[in-house]
């Protein structure tokens, strides 16, 4: 661009035109890259903060008052955790529904190794179920249907279980999902360990490895 005249009547030569295109392209690219860089802090500011990441300490729960057949919900990391002491009848029911389940052996589901068994519980006290009460479909908290027998949602000969009110997923009393419902995995078993006879620590199983 040697003179004003040349630049004002624009694309006088082919060479100028391609140069100009190149420079315009380069400028646009610089803008795009800068915009992308500028977006990074904004986008990252929306990820969980340091405070959110550090929350989530394990919680203790004394289950000595829990009678056979009783259930409570405990909060851990803002999520409901079910602690259920199953009766022998409930335990027997687990084997009767195997045929109806989508993942009876919990092969595709999330649980610590020590809970990958039909009761989905620590073999020491396998009547105690400790489970995230979070539906594996879209995260509602299923309603407990502890009674054995006909139930409007669980069916004519229910062996007891959990029913998700959101989209109708059904689980057995070990949180194993039934076939042909929206959820596709068994509910998650969190890491846990027993601190003594009556106290359970949810969210931490360090002692097991020790």
């Amino acid at each position, binding site marked *: 661009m040697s003179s004003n005249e040349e630049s004002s009547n624009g694309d006088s030569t082919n060479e100028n035109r391609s140069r100009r295109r190149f420079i315009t392209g380069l400028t646009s690219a610089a803008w795009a890259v800068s915009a992308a860089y500028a977006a990074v802090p904004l986008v990252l500011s*929306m990820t*969980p903060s340091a405070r*959110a990441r550090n929350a989530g300490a394990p919680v203790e729960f004394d289950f000595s008052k829990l009678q056979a057949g009783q259930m409570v919900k405990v909060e851990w990391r803002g999520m*409901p955790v079910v602690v259920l002491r199953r009766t022998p009848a409930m335990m027997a029911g687990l084997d009767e529904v195997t045929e109806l389940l989508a993942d009876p052996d919990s092969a595709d589901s999330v649980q610590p190794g020590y809970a990958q068994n039909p009761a989905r519980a620590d073999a020491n006290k396998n009547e105690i179920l400790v489970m995230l009460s979070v539906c594996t479909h879209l995260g*509602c*908290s299923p309603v407990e249907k502890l009674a054995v027998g006909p139930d409007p949602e669980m069916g004519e000969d229910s062996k007891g279980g959990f029913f998700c009110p959101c989209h109708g997923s059904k689980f057995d009393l070990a949180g194993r999902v039934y076939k042909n419902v*929206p959820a596709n995995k068994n509910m998650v078993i969190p890491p846990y360990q027993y601190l003594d006879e009556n106290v359970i620590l949810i969210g931490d199983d360090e002692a097991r490895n020790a």
Partner: protein
Amino acid sequence: MGNFMEWLDRRFPATQVWNDHMAKYWTPKNFNFWYYFGVLSIVILVLQIVTGIFLTMHYKPDVTLAFASVEYIMRDVPWGWLIRYLHAIGASAFFVVIYLHMFRGLIYGSSREPRELVWLIGCVIYVALMAESFMGYLLPWGNMSYWGAQVIISLFDVIPYVGPALSEWIRGDFVVSDATLNRFFAFHVIAVPLILCVLVFLHIVALHKVGSLNPDGIEIKENKDKGGIPLDGIAFHPYYTVKDTVGVVVFFIIYLGVVFYWPEGGGVLLEKDNFTPANSLQTPPDIVPLWYFTPFYSILRASTADFLVVLGSLTAIAAIATPFIKTKRSNKIAAFVGYGVIAICLFIFDAKWWGVVMMAMAIVVMFLLPWLDKSPVKSIRYRSLPFKIAVTIFVLAFISLGYLGMHPVSALSTIQAQTCTVLYFAFFALMPFYTTWGKTKPVPERLT
């Protein structure tokens, strides 16, 4: 005054804009009932923004304070109850009006050439509006707010690989929490309304470039007088500004009637479970989304393992039928690529993934309407019978899905929802065919 306008017009195109878009904007003279809903949408948008500003003066976006601050607005803030009801019922009114507005586009062929962009921008508005109301619904921090957000955000989990990280990013936490509430407040109060205003502006700009269609589905610009004014056109102002005022008054009679005498709307407009604060341990036993989302919610629930067999069979039937259809070769190849993709996805993904994908597709297909409709005429007045039947079935299916979505699932209702889901998609998928079937009526030269 004259001098002032002269002064102004030399600096700002005031008179020009007024004439181009109001006093000399030529509109078809035969607008009917269905043409009120565009203006009504604008009225409600303004209403929502104004009432929203005043709610923001008292509302607190903090999980420990939010629920109580809404109760405070209802009980202690002078006229607070009115402002809140106007806003909450206004959201439902917005969707009533928008659904009717979209239906108008469907039956009069308004989405078709040259109004495709008006329709597309409209569809984006619809999506933005859904986002706006979804995020607004979390703010009162009731139990339905909480679990509604939990479910909808979890939808993103099904996206392969990035899903879980994405939903975590949306929540700003591992569960729906204070971080989520705070950012939804930011989006609901400023980000999405700004986007909506820009989109509505673009919607009107695109509309005014091509001009409105009308219940006869013919272009008034094809018959002009010597001065270039459409013979069947009348000035938007004063004719339609006055006529629309009547519509606005009728709308307010109905809307305020609900606000004053029936604000809960039988639990549909304000849900019972949202009168209890959020409880992260207890999902409400009869959880339902707001009525305007229930058709899509039903489609989500319709996806079970059995349904995938139906889906596979339908794809197979379509694949067998395709070679016999008279169309370009490239179209057939494209169709087969589509079937292939569906087949592969059926193989890889489970019912949960398909539920979310079908729900998203239910909205995506709306965008395609201008290109799926191949009828030689635009207005339903002159369309052939097959189209009228299809529209009727579609409306019934859509309403049924909405109804089913408001009630708990049962074995029967699942089958009903699955049937309606198939009908919903069939309406769009088969549209290129049935819109060409049957005899259309002759279209008049001039507006009737």
